[in-house]
Structures are given as structure tokens and as C-alpha cells.
């Protein structure tokens, strides 16, 4: 391990800073998208949808399947890039959203009203079941469950800015798509009737139902929206990192949950802020931990950092940075 002390270390640190920031922002947007699924469901039901990480992976698998089907049909080079991307993203979002709805109907709704831990245990079971369910499906269908995304020529490029900073088009895609979605979500939740219904149920389901809000349908809708956001994150994750397996959801899922708690669970802007913070923190840990500790601890500790943040935030500030917006009566 070469010694990187003093000014040389600082030079290197400054030189790679823009790249680290970019990596952190890309990660942050993905965590934010996944965290929204956790936080919205927690808002209306007060329960951790542990299987959300598998909804995310499902999105990545739908994405790769659509691309592989297009490839085998020979359409990957003939169709317009925007059409391909739109097709992949929309299919991934819709299927993930529907899967999340089905999950709620089958594994959670029968348990609502009982102790909270019962539903959490069922959600953990659903998470494990879906992991191996995906594995089973892909094993029978493709005879392997480690899938690689086909290369998309039109986004497999880099835009060089300086010697130290190249912006991959993939990163731009993630950032732009996520930004549009987050703005869209903000409008949906705050300006539309359905969004108002979601907020009403989150605030007080009993009163909301007295006011004529169909609570069960709103819960299903919340699962659909959260699942679709998770599916979008999955597709973007797949395109960005080019590979996916049924078990690749656990760690991003836990980090996104951390992000949701960091921002204050149930709090939609909080999830975005938390996701971004966690993404940046992880990118910094991955790049600078080794520099800071003189090579003793390296990038392999980036997951530990995220989990430590989770533990510390839960112990010292369980309401999160922006405050949780969960009703007190049931908590």
C-alpha cells in the first residue's frame, strides 16, 4: 500500500472530488427513488415494507428482459433510442407497481390491524420468497440468474469535461430521469386529488374514511406509486451498473431504508434529502476512507458506513433530520 500522506494525499483528494461528487449524486438519486417507496408506505400503514427491495430488483429484471427481447428481435439498433428507453422504463415501472399492489393484497392486507411485527415478519418472508421466485423464474427461462444488460450504444458514451472528470451519459440519464420523476411526484402528491387522498390517509385513516376516502384503494394506490418508483430505480440501476441478480436488492434496499429514516420516515421531501445525503456519504467513504486511514480501511467499508449511519440515526435521532410525519396515536 503506497503511503499517501500530507499534501500528496490532499492533492489526490481534490483531484478526484468532482468525480466523487458525481458518483454520489447518481447514487443519491437512486436511493431517493427507492426510499420514497419505503417512506410512502410507512406514511399510510406505519409498517416497513421489507420486500420493497425485491420490487426494486424486479424492475431491474423487467428492464433487462425487455432489452434482451428487443435485442433478440433485432430492434435494439433500429428503434429510436428515446423509444427504447421509454419502453424499458415504463414497462419496469408498471410491472413493479402492479407487483407491489399484489404483494399488499396477498401478504399484508390480511394482517393489518394486528400487531405491527406480524406484518413485518410477513414482509421479510415476502422479500425472501420474491428473491428465490425471481431466481426460479430466470433459472427456468434463461438457465442463469445473473443477467447482463445488453450494451446500449447511444448511452454508452462519456462526455469529457476535464482530465479528472468525465460524465458518463448513463449518469446523466439517471439524474435527468430521477429529477423529472421527483418533480412529477411532488405535483402528484400535493396538487392532485389522489395525492390529497394519500396524504389524508397518512394523517388519519379513520377520519379520512369518514370523509369518504376509500382507504383500501388509497393504500393500494400508494403501493403502486411506491412500487413504480422502486421499479424505475431498478431499471436505472440495471442500465447504470449493467448487471443484476435476484439478491442484488438487499444492500441498496437497506441503504434506501436508511435514507428514509435519515430524512424522517413518512416524510416525502425527507426521503429525497436523505437519499442524496446517503449517496454522497457513501461515495465519499468509498473514495476517501482509504486515503484518510492510510490504506488501513478501504472502500470495502462503505456498506458498514451506511449501516452505522442507520444505527446511529435510529438511536440518537429516530425522528430523522426533517422530522417524521407519522401520526402519533398509533406509534
Amino acid at each position, binding site marked *: 500500500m503506497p503511503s499517501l500522506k500530507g499534501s500528496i494525499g490532499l492533492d489526490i483528494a481534490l483531484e478526484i472530488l468532482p468525480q466523487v461528487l458525481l458518483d454520489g449524486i447518481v447514487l443519491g438519486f437512486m436511493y431517493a427513488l427507492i426510499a420514497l417507496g419505503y417512506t410512502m408506505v410507512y406514511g399510510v400503514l406505519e409498517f416497513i415494507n421489507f420486500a420493497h427491495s425485491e420490487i426494486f430488483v424486479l424492475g431491474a429484471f423487467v428492464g433487462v428482459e425487455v432489452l434482451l427481447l428487443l435485442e433478440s428481435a433485432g430492434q435494439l439498433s433500429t428503434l429510436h433510442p428515446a423509444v427504447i428507453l421509454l419502453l424499458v422504463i415504463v414497462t419496469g415501472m408498471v410491472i413493479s407497481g402492479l407487483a407491489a399492489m399484489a404483494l399488499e393484497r396477498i*401478504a399484508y392486507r390480511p394482517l393489518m390491524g394486528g400487531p405491527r*411485527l406480524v406484518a413485518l415478519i*410477513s414482509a421479510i418472508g415476502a422479500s425472501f420468497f420474491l428473491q428465490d421466485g425471481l431466481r426460479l423464474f430466470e433459472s*427456468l427461462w434463461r438457465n442463469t440468474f445473473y443477467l447482463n444488460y445488453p450494451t446500449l450504444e447511444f448511452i454508452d458514451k462519456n462526455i469529457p469535461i476535464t482530465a479528472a472528470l468525465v460524465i458518463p451519459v448513463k449518469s446523466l440519464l439517471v439524474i435527468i430521469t430521477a429529477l423529472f420523476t421527483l418533480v412529477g411526484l411532488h405535483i402528484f402528491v400535493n396538487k392532485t386529488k389522489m395525492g390529497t387522498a394519500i396524504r389524508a390517509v397518512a394523517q388519519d385513516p379513520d377520519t379520512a374514511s369518514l370523509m369518504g376516502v376509500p382507504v383500501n384503494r388509497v393504500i393500494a394506490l400508494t403501493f403502486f406509486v411506491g412500487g413504480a418508483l422502486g421499479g424505475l430505480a431498478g431499471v436505472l440501476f440495471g442500465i447504470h451498473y449493467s448487471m443484476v441478480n435476484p439478491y442484488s436488492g*438487499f444492500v441498496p434496499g437497506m441503504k434506501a431504508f436508511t435514507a428514509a429514516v435519515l430524512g424522517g420516515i413518512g416524510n416525502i421531501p425527507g426521503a429525497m434529502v436523505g437519499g442524496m445525503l446517503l449517496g454522497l456519504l457513501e461515495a465519499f467513504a468509498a473514495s476517501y476512507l482509504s486515503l484518510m486511514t492510510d490504506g488501513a480501511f478501504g472502500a470495502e467499508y462503505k456498506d458498514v458506513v451506511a449501516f452505522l449511519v442507520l444505527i446511529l440515526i435510529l438511536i440518537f435521532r429516530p425522528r430523522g433530520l426533517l422530522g417524521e410525519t407519522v401520526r402519533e396515536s398509533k406509534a
Partner: protein
Amino acid sequence: MSQPLVIIGFCVYVVGSCLLAYFFPQSVLAFLLVEGSLLLLYYAPASDMAKIILGSLVLLVLLPLLGSVNAYYLEIAVQIGIFVALALGLNIVVGFVGLLNLGFVAFFAIGAYLWAIFGSPHANQFIPGGFFPLSPNWFFVFLILSIVVGALTGALLGLPVLRLRGDYLAIVTLGFAEVVRALVNNLDKPINLTNGPRGIAPIGKPPLFFKPWLEFFGLDIADGKLYSLYFYFLVLLIVFVIIVVTRRLENSRIGRAWKAIREDEIAAVAMGVPVVRMKLLGFAVGASFACAVGVLFAAKQVFINPESFTFMESIGVLAMVILGGMGSIPGAILGATGVTILNLQLLKGLSLWLNGLRQSGAVLSLPLLGDLSLANLPAQFEPAKYERMVFGLILILMMIFRPQGVLPSKQERQK
């Protein structure tokens, strides 16, 4: 039915199934029948005394005899024993105190690495002097030590997290286990404490202190066979001790305090139950069981690496507790046995059978699908690799249809 008749019937069943297992050592089914005898005994309408005598006969005499014919049976029994001990430990935390611990395997890992590091030459890497591996006699010292270490780490984890509400506590324990696993995985530098993903081997086995006595009686058993019998009895002893301790705790002041906290924490505080201290105690007792079994596990495996201590193992143990019934000691035993048999024997047996079909290349003629050649079955499709699906199904189905478990505790039954 009169009692002697029941006992005779049971004996006939046990002898019959043992003979089957003896003459068909390859048959999974025959051994399952033997294992089923204990379940049968549990439900048999006989006095407790008769049950204990018959049960110890099966466990202390028949199983070791079968095992000396086919060591695989003992291997299965030892695995079951390890999981029974883990499930009983988790049952204290989840079942009695009512705290969902999703990182239980971390304590198991700590125990395993405790003995692995000092019971193998590995510790020489960071403690100079060449003292290691410690002599086998130290095994028992470490077994005792692990109980202390487990209780301490359990309390250490418990101290900050116990004021969290239920679901957050579950997630923090999960995070704790992941941190422990990441540390074990990466602490091969700067100081090589755990040897990272390469794992540690060879780990010392417990001492064969009784060998001279056996030789005195003219019994000359090969070391390999002796060790598998030895581990079997050791695990049986540990499980026995754990069962006794758990039962005594359950019916004590402490056990009643735990259940009071589980049912209604606020009411428990009002009644003067020292909630935090009792929760800590629950965490510590459960963790010390897991830690002690970890030491045994390391000695039995000879080689361990972080792969054995994943989140999946934690959930597997949780599935065992929930299948049997939270808070029920017979339930935890049944759950652990059932799930382990399912994973180690049934699914593996199914995998082997499918492989056989695949290699035979037989062709099935199905009415709608046409001819289906079995040789074309995807090679990826192996039921033994789908443990997670099994655990997941157990958790969902039990929560929806029978949350009190297969063998509910007395309180649950009275509800």
C-alpha cells in the same frame, strides 16, 4: 388406549423404522420415520415418565447405534441440535420478551470466531510467541467463556437499542449483524484478525479425554467415528442444558416479567417490572446460547468463513421459531428440527432425484405439452438451493394462517 399398549406400539414403530434405516441407509424416508418417532412420542397418550424414558432411549441408544452404521445420520442430528439450540435462544428474545431480533446470527458468528481464532494456528499472526493453536483442553474453557462473551455482546447491543419501538429495533439488530459480518469479512487487514473471506482452518476439535477409558473397556473406535459420536453427545448435552435453563427461566420471576413486557409494556412498568433490565437480560441470555453453540459449530466444521453467518441464517432461525410457535419451547424444537430436515434432507433428496432423472434422459409424454425430455430440465433448477423460498413461505403462511405456531405455548392456547 391403555398405557402399556401405547408403549408397546411405540417400541414396535421405533424398532421397525430403525431396521428400515439400517437396511436402507440411502433412503431419506426411512430416517425420516426414525426422526418422526420423537414427534409421535410427544403426542402419545402416555405418562411423562414413560415419554422421558422412551425419548432418551431413542436419543441416547438408538440414534448413536444407527449413526455408527451411517455417519450421515449423526451429521444430520448434530446440525439439527445446533439449530434447536439457536432457535431456543432466539425464542427467548422473540418469543418471551417479544423483541424481533433480525441479527441473531451475529452472536453465533462471534462464538464461532472466538474458538476459530484461538483454537487454530491463526492467532499466531497477531500474538507473537507461537502459543497457538491452544491445546484441545481449552475447548471447554472457551465454551464457558463464550457464554460470558455472548451475554456481554448481547447486553452491549441491547443497551442503546432497547428504547426503540419494535420495527426500528428489528432493523437495528439487522444492521448490527451486517456490520459484524462486514468486519469479519474485512478484518484481514491492517491486522489479520479473521483472515477475511478465506476463512480459518484447521480449527481444533474438543479433547478425546475419555479415549483411555474406552480402551480400558476394550472398545477401539476409529477417531473419525468417535468424533462424530462425540459431537452428537456434546450437542445433545448443550441442548439439554439449554432446555432446562429455558424452562426454569420461563416459570420464574424473570420469565413472567418477560411475558408481561411482551403483552403490554406500559402495564408491566406500572406493575414495577424493571423493563430495561429485563429486556437486557433477555438479549443477553439468548445471545449467550447462540455464542456457545457457535464455539461448538466452529469445532465441528474445522473450517469456517463469513459465508455461514449471513442474514439468511438469521431469518432461517426466525422461521424455525415462528413455525413452532413464538414463546413455546417444544415449538422451537419442532420448528428447528422440521426446517433443518426439510433443508438438509428433503430438498437435497429432491435435488438428487431430479439430477438422476436428468441423467437418465427419460422422455415424458404429457397430454398437452407433447414430449418433454427430462434431460432438458434446466441444470439451474435445484430445489436444495431454494432455502430462501422455503423460509419466506413459512413466514408468510404462518403469519397469515397460524400466527401462534404449530405447537403454541400454553398462554397462546388459552387465549
